[in-house]
């Protein structure tokens, strides 16, 4: 009973957050609404006893992605968030087609084929089990991912350095 109430409250918050994030013209309001959506999603994960995924959801999506978005907005001229320009959405038809087809061809088969346990208590997903899985069968995937991230990090540093040198050159000339 309490779980159901919690689920519905979180689900409504998530949907409202997502809607506000899309509809608000004020960019900063949109980002914060998106964060509310992420937080509600983390709550839903917690309800499924997937505490580690909930923590990572907060850590990565709110802590990193959200702040990155704010940083990006700060670097544009629309720091104040106001955007009087009317943005008319033209591609709503194709957007609708894309959303419906994702639901029908991707989500629905996944839900139907998933082997769901009777109750949440019987799965026992713990940080330890996840760690063992990551270190034993999926270690190669993990290492490849780490390599990819390291490469992108080094690439970012290299790109930033290159830009600075160019600027200095133009200043001298």
């Amino acid at each position, binding site marked *: 009973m309490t779980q159901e109430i919690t689920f519905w409250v979180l689900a409504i918050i998530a949907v409202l957050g997502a809607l506000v994030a899309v509809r608000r013209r004020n960019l900063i309001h949109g980002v*914060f609404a998106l964060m509310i959506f992420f937080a509600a999603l983390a709550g839903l994960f917690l309800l499924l006893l997937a505490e580690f995924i909930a*923590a990572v959801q907060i850590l990565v999506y709110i*802590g990193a992605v*959200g702040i990155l978005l704010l940083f990006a907005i700060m670097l544009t001229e629309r720091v104040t*968030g106001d955007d009087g320009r009317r943005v008319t959405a033209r591609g709503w038809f194709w957007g609708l087609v894309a959303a419906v087809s994702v639901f029908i061809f991707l989500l629905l088969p996944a839900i139907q084929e998933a082997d769901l346990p009777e109750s949440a208590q019987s799965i026992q997903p713990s*940080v330890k089990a996840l760690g063992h899985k990551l270190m034993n069968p999926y270690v190669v995937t993990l290492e490849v991912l780490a390599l990819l991230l390291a490469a992108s990090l080094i690439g970012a540093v290299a790109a930033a350095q290159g830009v600075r040198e160019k600027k200095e050159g133009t200043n001298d000339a």
Partner: protein
Amino acid sequence: MNLDLIKDILVATVPLLIIFPSLFAFTTWLERKALARIQNRIGPNKVGIPCTRISLFGLGQPAADGIKMIFKEDIVPRGADRLFHLLAPILALIPAMLVLCFLPLDFSFFAFWDEGIAEDIKAVQSFALDGAVIFFFAITGLNTLAIFMAGWASRNKYSLLGGMRAIAQMVSYEIPLVLSAVIVVMYVGSLNAEKIVLAQDTLWFVFTPWGLAAFVIFFIAALAETNRSPFDLPEAESEIIAGYFTEYSGFKFALFFLGEYIAMFAISGLAVVLFLGGSLGPGVTVELVDGAKELESAFAGLPIIWLLAKIFALIAVMIWLRGTLPRLRVDQLMAFAWKFLLPLSILNILVAGFAYFIPQENIGPKVAVWTVSLGILYAAAKGLNSLNRADVKPREYKYAE
């Protein structure tokens, strides 16, 4: 809704909501008094018990401050975003209070009149999340958002500068903070705060070479995370007029203040749990009960006293540093995080791995591990220091001899 659930929620949260705000009041008094002594002043010494002449070393000052804050006019700038201006102080307080749940605080002895309630508190709080440490870091990160929100919503350039400084600083210092905590997590093999405390029954982690280095890095990063001096750039009064809370007055300002101090308690609490043996101390021992380690204390409430005493020791160091060190410059702040603390904390993980696999029963290997680990870390710190040092030329005076 069943009443039991509401009761459980209340017994788990009410102690936190009473104890920490009252400790906050005491800490503001302590800080003002200590800073005053450092600066050769007297500090608050008039307000004591109302309507009497008893001043109690000015201990009534926090209450007087609170009353003043509540009755002050709440000024919202005309251009401000009213909703966000209101939400920011609340959002600053929530994560700070929330992370207190992840510390192993056992308040069950408060309900000494009713065994049932005490059992309930134990049951609720023994729902110690397996991932307490990772949750702690996830939720403390939200504090940054509140500060940014405040800075942005005030529609004031100094506030915005403060907010942007805060984001840059907190994102950078979170990395060494987490990396130095990771060492303890790796050593214990658990993210559970209680298990980390129990693993320190013979030796607190601060008394190991890697633990000492990690503790120092953690403490520096924690100072930056809580915007304490010398890392109080987001609220630098002399440069950007209190930064993100320039436009806050009255009770909203008090909420920011409360959030900041609760965050200090929380991060010091985590430092105590990770490195200073948590609630262990004389009178509190670890016993083996059915093959599982459990805390045994001489009397109920002793563990929490030890924990709070250690937290206050760290808070005292923070106050002392505030009275001693000048504020960093922005470029120094960033360079210190990325070019000094980050490489050092990564190296420290390797050192901890090396120390973990060397048996240290005898005094010989112990001394060897200590000297080698601290030697490596010292050499690395020296090396980083000389690498980072900018070429300083003798100053050229343009207009004066």
